[in-house]
């Protein structure tokens, strides 16, 4: 091929590649960029339709963040989310680590079927179960209590984490455990002393996944909790800060950013492991 033509072709391919990336990054990240701008703009600037919204027409301000932390219960919502997240993570690990290990070591066709069956319960959406749960929670006297969320959230974190951990445990060679058995450990002892320490990465993935799911959950939160001091972040920001006709856009966008970005950064390191879980193990 003519070298000039080949070069033109390469430049064209690169430009096309860049254009695709620019399009998608703009589409997917723009709401967060707009949140960032809104958080630090003055209300006057936001409410002037003649101002260019992409620029700071007034100097940047911390006013909205001050309002968010001083005049709303945002900090309380963050603490609530942290509390529910931590409790759910503990319950999830206690249930899913042994279950994942058992599924990984069981042989036979029904073990595989059981594993898939547990995974499929992850797909049962809250929107099918929230109505009976509303009454169950009322009967248990847990309305408005964060414990209602602690009780119910493992119903979707346990199935996925069990599946995820099963994949991790399967990757650990059985020889390691057999060696431990020869050294006099029991089967359970081998699991605790040999398998668990080398599965820390897998368990960390399960922790992050369970915590992310808790921060994202909305349907049960909005159904069980009615008093603003017991909200989690994902429920409190869209319900409480929108109440009435006044929208505190600056504070709301700040709240969205603070609640989204840190967890996204952590998640980014582990995304490949989640994908293995999501693809039903078809891609290794």
């Amino acid at each position: 091929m003519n070298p000039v033509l080949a070069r033109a072709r390469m430049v064209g391919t690169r430009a096309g590649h860049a254009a695709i990336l620019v399009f998608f990054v703009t589409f997917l990240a723009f709401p967060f960029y707009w949140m960032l701008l809104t958080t630090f703009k003055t209300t006057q600037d936001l409410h002037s339709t003649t101002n260019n919204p992409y620029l700071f027409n007034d100097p940047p301000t911390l006013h909205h963040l001050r309002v968010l932390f001083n005049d709303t219960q945002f900090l309380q919502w963050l603490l609530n989310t942290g509390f529910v997240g931590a409790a759910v993570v503990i319950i999830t690990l206690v249930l899913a680590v042994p279950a994942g290990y058992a599924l990984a070591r069981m042989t036979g066709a029904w073990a595989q079927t059981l594993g898939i069956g547990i995974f499929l319960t992850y797909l049962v959406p809250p929107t099918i179960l929230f109505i009976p749960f509303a009454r169950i929670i009322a009967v248990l006297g847990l309305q408005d209590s964060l414990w209602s969320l602690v009780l119910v959230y493992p119903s979707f974190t346990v199935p996925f984490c069990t599946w995820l951990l099963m994949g991790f445990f399967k990757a650990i060679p059985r020889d390691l455990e057999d060696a431990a058995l020869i050294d006099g450990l029991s089967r359970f002892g081998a699991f605790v002393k040999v398998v668990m320490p080398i599965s820390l990465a897998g368990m960390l993935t399960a922790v992050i996944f369970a915590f992310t799911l808790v921060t994202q959950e909305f349907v049960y939160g909005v159904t069980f909790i009615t008093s603003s001091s017991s909200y989690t972040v994902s429920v409190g920001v869209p319900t409480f800060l929108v109440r009435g006709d006044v929208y505190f856009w600056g504070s709301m966008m700040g709240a969205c950013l603070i609640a989204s970005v840190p967890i996204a950064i952590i998640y980014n390191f582990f995304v490949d492991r989640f994908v293995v879980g999501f693809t039903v193990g078809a891609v290794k």
Partner: protein
Amino acid sequence: MIDTYTTAPNRAEAGLLARFADNERWLSRVMLAPAILYIVLLVGFPFLLSLFYSLSSVTVASREIHFVGLENFRRIVESGTFWLSLKNTILITVISQFFVIVFANILAMALLVDFRVKWFVRFLVLLPWVAPISLGSIGWLWIFDSIYSIINWTVRVIGLFGPNFWPIWLGQPDLAIASIIIVNVWRIVPLATVIVLAGLTSIPKDIHDAAAVDGAGFWRRHFQITAPLIMPITLVALLFGIIFTFTDLIVVFVLTRGGPYDQTQVIASWAYFTGIQGGDLAGGAAISLFLFPVLVAVAVLFLWFARRAEVT
């Protein structure tokens, strides 16, 4: 294999507990039982309760529950809002998932190539998936604002549709549905992209090299080699997208609350407004059960897929 160890001399005087800890069959059952019990109690039981409620007259306040047969379903099917919700749910799911699959394939191809700042691009691309959906939707609520919409401002400045172009995104039924579709595409594309990307990465490079040597160009390689190979994994991405979109309540709840005049109601949101805000638990339970057939269909496809993956 294990039995040879349990009968080893140093285990001979082991107590009952130790023998138990060594019996693989019992151990695996004991380790599985708590998780399965939790799932049965917190997924299975509420689901059965939901079936029962849908055939009853239960409300938030009622003490007695009467069995009313299919009365709730008759009421639902006769309601115009039901058919509108069903139509909206299907429309939103089908259109959004079409774009999700097209976009995810293009973006995954673009992310397969190595380039500088790739990790940062991947981080930005993943944001919509990791951020809580309710908060992402709030961001879009602000973007679609009737007075300060940044989309309208931008389009007007570019002069694309003339100076009088100022759509009220969430106030006109068809635009509101379009907005809901956009947010759903935005939310699911990251997940679908990483799944398809995993499929692309798993294709051995020599297949492409061999085809290139044989003179196959990019498009031919793409449609005759890559596309069939990543078809199953794309199907997995599609199934997740269908489940997450079809059963979603949050996007509609935050953007429109089903308005204007129930025109953007979907099944899940209508179940919420009937069952929780309206207090008619029986009606709400019956409505939400209409989500179930799709769930079953997707579950069957997953099982089929898992079996296939096992064989190959």
